[in-house]
């Protein structure tokens, strides 16, 4: 049961000394891990929140969940950012990649607090969402309502064949 607590994508947690090539089960286990690891590195779903990115660990920024939708006229990206204010959110465009980042600060209304349950996440968050070709990023618009950020990017009329 202890094993399941170790994140599977962090291969370095297996100490080299624990590897024994003569043990067929250990070898098989290792091969399966390597196979799965390389599969995940090549996993090319652009929306996957950085599973294959190096350095991803518990300290890494949180990735908000996103929905991407489209119509004939526009592409719409919605991100869940509950508890944030508009001023805490940064929306950027780097070429055709939309970036959403910011920081959610822990509320500090009073010092004396006794937590019974902590599930909500705090701290920095970021996510990069590649936009499809043929959108006019200069006309991107963002709005924030009820903890959901919606970025709308119209399609570029000129690029429509």
């Amino acid at each position: 049961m202890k094993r399941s607590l170790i994140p599977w994508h962090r291969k370095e947690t297996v100490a080299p000394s624990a590897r024994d090539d003569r043990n067929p089960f250990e070898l098989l286990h290792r091969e399966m891990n390597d196979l799965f690891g390389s599969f995940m590195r090549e996993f090319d779903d652009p929306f996957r929140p950085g599973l294959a990115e190096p350095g991803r660990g518990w300290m890494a920024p949180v990735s908000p969940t996103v929905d991407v939708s489209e119509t004939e006229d526009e592409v719409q990206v919605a991100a869940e950012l509950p508890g944030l204010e508009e001023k805490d959110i940064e929306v950027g465009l780097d070429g055709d990649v939309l970036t959403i980042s910011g920081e959610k600060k822990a509320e500090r209304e009073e010092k004396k607090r006794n937590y019974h349950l902590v599930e909500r996440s705090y701290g920095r968050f970021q996510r990069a969402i590649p936009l499809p070709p043929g959108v006019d990023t200069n006309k991107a618009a963002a709005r924030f309502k009820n903890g959901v950020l919606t970025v709308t990017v119209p399609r570029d009329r000129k690029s429509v064949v």
Partner: protein
Amino acid sequence: METTREMQTTEPKVETARERPVYAPDTDIYENDAAIVLVADLPGLDEKNVHVELENDILTISGRSPALEIEGLEPVHREFSEREYRRSFAINADVDRERIRANMKNGVLKLTLPKAAAAKPRQIAVEAAG
């Protein structure tokens, strides 16, 4: 006598007959001298589509995210929309049920459950023996 003031999380009720998946919202619960405070993330929801119910010591939060507004919107990649939220918590006798308050801001529900007078910590004066 029951002394613990902790609220127990009950299993989220999974209703398989529904067309939408049911999620338990991420929740923080903390306590101070005056109240137990429950904070739940319900992004996309506002006060009109969140329901809070108290029945037989079971406090239930529920709601559903509103449908996508734009006509002809094709989902390309979906991680959260069209969700149904539901989660129940057992509360004990220390909560003053008449004074529970709820408010919604930026997709976060904050429930304040004031402690009943008997449950609040208090100082008891020590007198010298006569």
